[in-house]
């Protein structure tokens, strides 16, 4: 029996899930606060354990690698899980989420943890579905809400088809490699399976599955509809954790397929010459950021806007994978952390506003500054950060990420990314300008002030504070990101 150490966070989450189920059953009819506390406690302890664990690059249980990257993703996902539970309680959907909701979040996070550590295709697929299936339900949990129903229906259909396509690609890859292990894949790559035509098919189909999970164009269609239909907190969960886990798994696969780092760019620097997979990812990156930003321009509903923006952000992150180097990968990790706080904050605050206004349309945000300056300023900071303006965390993430892209000579890709940043300025700023009306008349109609409960204040402050703080002092975080990615990428 191998050492159970690397599994402790997963076991903790499982225990928490069962405890939640049990307390929920016992406590029927009462206000189910205990399960929520249990779930948060589970996330926190699991995260702390992972934080304290020593990374190890050996493969355990034949399918997992609890290296620095995997542990970092574990901490990341547990953090998101805990914050999502809190955000749900402050958002528009459930004031006190039921035991089922918590169980599903716990199960999905468990899937994410395994997904980000798995170095075996079977485990990867299984974990992938362990993330997906609870998510389908989470989206549709408000059963009487027509929008939620529609969203979950679309999500499950789109998701099932994508995962079937990915599975088909995986099956071909397994046949080509003769094993389900990623290390075997890496060995097979050196034996030249990359030249086989079916390898291209496998790459494309796998990429389709990952692209679904991270909502990259052209497999993004579900995202705007699903985010718009789901409670804001769930939208944030999908946009952050689910996506991050997808990236983690993609990084694992790319690390197996790509030997070392990509070469310095030649020519204008569009796509690297390496294996197919990188080029596929590169195309996805270009499409996602360009179309995501362009489509976001026309959105008037906050959750749809954030959905399109998250598609664009997926593009930036894919860019880092395309230019596969230690510096872009560290940038990616940094960006993911920035992305975590920015998006969770955006969705959480959106949820608070929707709860009070009954709508997420831009008109609901008009004059928010006069209703509650606190929320307005917090959201404004988040928007600035999402745009990538200094001195916020989003800027730092973008800076490091694009620094890596440019340093490798992929000028055209980098410039395209930066141009996209300029486009995104518009729609983020529209939210900001809506919140801070400039003439007195505009504000008058919305002059009823809101009293913000302490919990709302704490949650928004807790999410926005890192956006500001890490925007100013990110050196430690940057060192950490570099350490985390060292284990993933070879020389």
């Amino acid at each position, binding site marked *: *029996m191998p050492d159970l150490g690397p599994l402790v966070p997963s076991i903790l989450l499982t225990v928490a*899930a069962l405890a939640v189920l049990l307390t929920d059953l016992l406590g029927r009819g009462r206000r189910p606060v205990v399960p929520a506390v249990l779930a948060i406690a589970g996330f926190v302890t699991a995260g702390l354990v992972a934080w304290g664990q020593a990374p190890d690059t050996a493969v355990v*249980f034949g*399918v997992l690698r609890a290296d620095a990257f995997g542990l970092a993703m574990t901490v990341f996902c547990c953090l998101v899980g805990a914050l999502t539970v809190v955000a749900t309680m402050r958002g528009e959907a459930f004031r006190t989420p039921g035991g*089922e909701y918590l169980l599903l979040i716990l199960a999905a996070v468990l899937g994410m943890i395994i997904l980000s550590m798995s170095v075996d295709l079977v485990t990867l697929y299984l974990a992938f579905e362990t993330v997906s299936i609870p998510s389908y*339900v989470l989206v549709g949990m408000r059963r009487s809400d027509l929008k939620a129903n529609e969203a979950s229906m679309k999500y499950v259909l789109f998701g099932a088809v994508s995962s079937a396509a990915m599975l088909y690609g995986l099956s071909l890859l397994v*046949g080509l490699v003769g094993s389900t292990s990623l290390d075997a894949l890496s060995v097979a790559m050196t034996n030249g399976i990359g030249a086989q035509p079916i*390898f291209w*098919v496998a790459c494309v189909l796998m990429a389709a599955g990952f692209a679904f999970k991270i909502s990259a164009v052209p497999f993004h269609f579900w995202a705007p509809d699903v985010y718009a239909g789901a409670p804001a907190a769930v939208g944030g969960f999908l946009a952050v954790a689910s996506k991050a886990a997808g990236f983690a798994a993609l990084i694992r696969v790319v690390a197996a397929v790509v030997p070392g780092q990509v070469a310095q760019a030649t020519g204008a620097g569009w796509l690297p010459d390496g294996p197919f997979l990188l080029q596929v990812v590169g195309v996805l990156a270009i499409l996602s950021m360009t179309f995501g930003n362009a489509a976001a321009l026309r959105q008037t509903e906050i959750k749809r806007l954030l959905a399109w923006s998250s598609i664009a952000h997926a593009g930036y992150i894919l860019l880092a994978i395309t230019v596969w180097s230690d510096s872009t990968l560290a940038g990616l990790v940094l960006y993911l952390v920035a992305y975590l706080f920015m998006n969770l904050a955006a969705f959480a605050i959106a949820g608070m506003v929707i709860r009070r206004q009954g709508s997420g349309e831009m008109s609901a945000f008009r004059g928010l500054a006069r209703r509650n300056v606190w929320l307005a300023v917090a959201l404004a900071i988040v928007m600035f950060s999402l745009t990538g303006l200094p001195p916020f965390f989003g800027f730092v993430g973008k800076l490091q990420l694009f620094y890596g892209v440019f340093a490798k000579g992929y000028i055209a890709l980098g410039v395209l990314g930066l141009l996209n940043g300029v486009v995104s300025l518009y729609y983020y700023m529209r939210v900001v300008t809506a919140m801070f009306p400039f003439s007195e008349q505009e504000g008058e109609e919305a002059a009823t002030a809101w009293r913000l409960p302490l919990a709302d204040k704490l949650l928004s402050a807790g999410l926005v504070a890192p956006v500001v703080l890490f925007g100013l002092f990110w050196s430690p975080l940057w060192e950490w990101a570099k350490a985390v990615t060292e284990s993933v990428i070879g020389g």
Partner: protein
Amino acid sequence: MKLPDLTPYIAPAVFYGLAAFAVISAIAAATAPKIVHAAFGLMAAFFGVAGLYFMLGADFVGLAQVIVYVGGILVLLVFGILMTGKTRSTLGLEEKPKLLIPAFVGGLFFFGLLLALHGTDFAARAVPPDPQPTTAPIGRAFLDPEQYLLPFELSSMLLLAALVGAAYLARRRRT
């Protein structure tokens, strides 16, 4: 008169028979105007594939296919069809699928797969060894900590979450 030795042809004949059965059933599932017929098409395809599994010497998987797919998933789907059949909308148990674009996309996909398969060398054995019983190795693989024990455990969590979620959603509304 001596009958020609048909032994070398039996396996191919069975294969082509099963394959044709599965593929034609699948196409029927795609095109049948009645949903129930589509479900039957699926069932037939399941059986065809199960037959192919037996031909491949995968007896356990073939059996699981019959039990789980036909006995479980298909029944679930048929229940779904029946429960949603009484609908006030135009779309009930019958539906004439619009095939033009799907057939084009599907055809293109198939063509692309064929092209790729055609040029690929899987380093496969032309004549595989005689099939061995698989149940015991599969069982061992599931329970071996160095193989698939962890995914096996994970799948139980997946099932738990799926069932709790499904039960929550499908529960009759209190109002």
